């Protein structure tokens, strides 16, 4: 017959000391995490230290919210190459760079532009943009700027014309109008192809500003070579129109009054948005390949705000429910588990701030779910412990046996959930489906942390508690939920 015995004196002491160390370590980690989680300004040295070598130091004030929570637009752009044509890998890189420049030029803070798996797609995230449609138009317009010869006819802003680089523009445009996809515009010269004499290459910079009457206009600066070209052309064509065409649409057609060298202004009836959009397109050059929008998703700020409020409320109530449940069923060990659960929640949030993790709505749901499931590991341990106690083991040994017996099930079970999370993460990554990806991330982090706190926090608490008041507990068995 096996004889249960308590470890001898010195081993007992060492075990208790080790445990105290771990306990202190966990509590310190918790306090640090709690501090990180608080929505206050954190000292610069701390933010620097926790940036782990990133270029810009991390901002630990607020949790990062995804587009579906703060409002914003996400666009998936795909290269629109005609049938049979191959796409050069360099082309997409250039396209991405130009799109990125345009996004920055539009002044969207914290925008993200990334190439997506599959080589021919770009994903753009524009948080908090008021006018998403205009923004997207700015991004994906080819932005091909041309100066054309009017060839003796009068051209005006808004007309659609054929140019050397775009000889079938009118035809394509008219087809679009028939299909109802494009708004009508004047096309008085459908068969004429106007000669392109200069392109946007000559521009160094372009800025939208207002003249003294409040009219919006686009000021531009020319490069050195561009200056020469422009000067020569304007000098030779005084009295003619200078026809400026963007993607086949006449932007402006002012009369040339004198030779112009370094810079000039494009006037016309532009709204503020239009002027800024055009300036951005002109500034960064034309896209090497047309981009089409294959997936666009906009969440208004009001909906995003609603979602945050509601999920917060739901989460808090749900978590309180779990805490009470643990207390009711498992009594004292339940209380310890609840404390471990609070630690778990804080650790999760701290990691969200440190990585950082961008929270999406499903991501929040995932987090709340893992709180519900993190309890599982603790329940497994407790059930084991109760069994051991029923069989007659001492409390100390029951705790140890509870952990060691429950661990294989915890490890294997959680790993299968991790497999799911990994697959979801892969799936979300292909399409830039940040909602799915956000869920996978919080699920994965939650599962890993749950295993960590089960082993370190719960066990440490139990051990610490037992070494101080273990014997008394054995007498008050109800407290243990037996």
């Amino acid at each position, binding site marked *: 017959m096996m004889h249960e015995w308590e470890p001898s004196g010195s081993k007992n002491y060492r075990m208790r000391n080790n445990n105290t160390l771990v306990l202190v370590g966990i509590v310190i980690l918790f306090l640090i995490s709690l501090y990180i989680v608080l929505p206050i300004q954190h000292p610069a040295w701390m933010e620097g230290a926790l940036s782990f070598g990133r270029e810009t130091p991390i901002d630990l004030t607020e949790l990062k919210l995804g587009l579906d929570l703060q409002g914003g637009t996400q666009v998936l752009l795909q290269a629109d190459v005609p049938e049979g044509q191959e796409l050069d890998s360099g082309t997409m890189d250039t396209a991405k760079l130009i799109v990125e420049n345009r996004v920055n030029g539009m002044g969207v803070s914290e925008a993200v532009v990334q190439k997506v798996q599959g080589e021919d797609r770009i994903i753009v995230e524009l948080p908090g943009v008021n006018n998403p449609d205009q923004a997207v138009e700015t991004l994906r317009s080819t932005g091909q700027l041309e100066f054309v010869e009017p060839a003796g006819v009068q051209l005006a802003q808004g007309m659609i014309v054929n140019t050397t680089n775009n000889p079938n523009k009118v035809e394509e445009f008219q087809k679009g109008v028939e299909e109802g996809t494009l708004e009508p515009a004047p096309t008085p010269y459908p068969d004429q192809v106007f000669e392109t004499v200069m392109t946007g290459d000559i521009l160094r910079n372009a800025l939208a500003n207002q003249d003294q009457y409040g009219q919006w206009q686009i000021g531009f600066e020319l490069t050195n070579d561009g200056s020469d070209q422009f000067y020569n052309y304007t000098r030779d064509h005084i009295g003619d129109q200078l026809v400026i065409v963007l993607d086949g649409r006449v932007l402006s057609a002012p009369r040339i009054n004198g030779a112009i060298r370094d810079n000039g202004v494009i006037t016309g009836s532009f709204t503020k948005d239009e002027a800024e959009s055009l300036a951005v397109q002109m500034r960064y050059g034309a896209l090497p390949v047309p981009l089409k929008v*294959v*997936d*666009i998703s906009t969440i208004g700020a009001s909906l995003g705000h609603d979602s945050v409020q509601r999920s917060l409320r739901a989460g808090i109530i749900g978590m309180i429910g779990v805490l009470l449940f643990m207390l009711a069923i498992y009594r004292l060990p339940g209380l310890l588990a609840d404390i471990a659960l609070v630690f778990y929640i804080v650790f999760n949030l701290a990691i969200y701030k440190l990585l950082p993790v961008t929270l999406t709505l499903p991501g929040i749901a995932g987090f709340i779910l893992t709180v519900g499931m993190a309890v599982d590991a603790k329940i497994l341990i407790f059930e084991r412990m109760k069994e051991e106690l029923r069989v007659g083991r001492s409390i100390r040994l029951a705790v140890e046996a509870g952990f060691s017996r429950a661990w294989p*099930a915890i490890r294997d079970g959680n790993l299968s959930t991790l*497999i799911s999370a990994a697959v979801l993460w892969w799936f979300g990554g292909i399409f830039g489906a940040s909602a799915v990806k956000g869920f996978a991330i919080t699920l994965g982090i939650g599962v890993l942390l749950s295993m960590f706190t089960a082993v370190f926090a719960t066990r440490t608490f139990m051990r610490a508690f037992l070494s101080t008041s273990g014997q008394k507990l054995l007498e008050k068995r109800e407290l243990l939920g037996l």
Partner: protein
Amino acid sequence: MFNYVERRRLWFTISAIAILPGIIFMIYSLATNGTILPLSIDYTGGTLWEMRFQQPVAPTDVRQIFVDNGYADTVAFNVENDQTVQVKFKNIDISEKTVLIDALEAKFGPLEERSYRSIGPSIGSEVSRAALLAVIMASALILLYIAWAFRQVSHPFRYGTSAVIALVHDVLVTVTFIGIMNLVAGWEIDALFLTAILTVIGFSVNDTIVVFDRIRENLKRHRGESFAMVADRSLVETFQRSVATQITALLVLVAILVLGGASLRQFMATMIVGLVSGTYSSLFNATPILVAWEEGSLFSRKKSGSSDVAKGKAVAA
């Protein structure tokens, strides 16, 4: 002993009742829509537009505007309140959207865009393919993992396969649920449905592993007993844990279901159904299947455990 395992015909019947409507629904859906499940724009492509006006608006009027502009295949209904309308129609370009906004504002006044989602058809079919791949991949990986984790028992692949069968059961139960909700409330399968399915798979297997782990341990401890008895014992022992875990998970999920926003409602409901099914299948499907397989009585009418108990008794005496 409660003879859970012996009653496997009962459990399988319950499962069949839960799954059969789903299968019928899939056939019905195939006949009417051409797809086995009602798919949202995530998989078919199209536009989903939620707009709020400053006064109550009838969805049929909104729909008319779209029809007038050439989008015959439009569905519109109120969400959240009468001022908010959600419209579903085909995939459009931004220039087309401007045309529609003008028309809508002309008729109904200022429009606040709550959300807008437009997906091209090519993306839609890609997502479908990837979704299928994801489910297969997850199941395969899990099967391999379980077979490896349980490599020390006599037939590790049986454990893995039983778990996968339970998992397929859970997927089918969720499909039944979606089918019913589709007929009742027009629910569709979106990317979050896939997320729910994969999560359910993960947790269902989690449950199954806990039971199997107990079986594995009890097999070592109680060598004399028949497999069926060991399984029964394991089920009883893990029962309280399974129920307790189920309750905590349900507590949080129901909280989100009730208090969270409308956009999470379908996701949460699917998860709840899936998780309950997951626990049920781990206890009452995966285990009986494993037992029957181990005992060779899977396809025969032999009552499980009877002859082995006799053998067991002979050994222990």
